[in-house]
């Protein structure tokens, strides 16, 4: 499963715009500050490139909590900012699905655990508590999903993970490209010049 081409383009555009916007004080910025600015730009880029999910709204809202971040976000996103932070109306997936998810997942855990259940304690009770604990942990990791459960929660999580992977891949691509161009510059031949010499031949 991959993110789309349009996601790639939107992500890179926003990331580079964000980096350029914060480049004003680059000379006076510490390495840590620059790193935070890039991370912030990357997260904004990811959320806005995807758009329209609970987690994208949750992420932008979370990032806007700090005042200085908010104005930076408004700069990068422009009119999109209003759309991305608009409160979401209820999902069409009904809460009843929570029981179906638990039931279908618990069947597997019971098949594996029923021979080793500790004396007097039902394995399904243990499994349920652990599932609850880990569900809470997941909700802390995926932005904007506190009110979701079952299918909706997994659906948002899947989308978020796919987008995170794309974010990593694209930043890696960008890094590789910059590094390659640096090596090219070191050999005293910049990219545009090299291209021009090819055309000449």
């Amino acid at each position, binding site marked *: 499963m991959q993110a789309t081409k349009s996601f790639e383009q939107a992500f890179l555009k926003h990331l580079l715009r964000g980096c350029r916007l914060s480049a004003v004080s680059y000379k006076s910025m510490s390495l840590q500050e620059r790193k935070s600015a890039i991370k912030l730009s990357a997260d904004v880029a990811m959320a806005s490139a995807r758009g329209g999910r609970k987690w994208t709204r949750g992420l932008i809202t979370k990032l806007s909590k700090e005042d200085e971040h908010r104005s930076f976000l408004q700069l990068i996103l422009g009119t999109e900012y209003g759309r991305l932070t608009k409160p979401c109306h209820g999902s069409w*997936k009904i809460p009843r*699905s929570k029981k179906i998810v638990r039931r279908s997942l618990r069947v597997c855990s019971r098949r594996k655990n029923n021979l080793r259940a500790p004396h007097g304690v039902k394995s399904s009770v243990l499994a349920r508590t652990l599932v609850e604990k880990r569900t809470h942990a997941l909700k802390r990791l995926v932005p904007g999903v506190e009110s979701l459960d079952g299918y909706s929660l997994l659906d948002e999580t899947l989308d978020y993970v796919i987008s995170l*992977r794309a974010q990593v891949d694209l930043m890696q691509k960008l890094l590789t490209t910059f590094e390659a161009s640096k090596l090219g510059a070191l050999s005293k031949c910049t990219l545009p010049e090299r291209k021009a010499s090819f055309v000449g031949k």
Partner: protein
Amino acid sequence: MSSRRSRVSEEEINELISKLQSLLPEARRRGGGRASAAKLLKETCNYIRSLNREVDDLSGRLSALMATVDNNSAEAEIIRSLLRS
């Protein structure tokens, strides 16, 4: 408001679960059997944390590199080539 059309089928849920599992790094090693809910949630959380760490690391490396990129035309060329690929 509960119409039959908006109800989620078990099939849809199973599909979602297996899609999520196929993304996780552990999925390659495991055979056919499906993991428990607790395991799936744990591995998903771990995976998200590791992806966040990667982004953090890449941000650091990018910031070190971008500090030295001051040639605007080279940067524009890079951007153009990336958007083309």
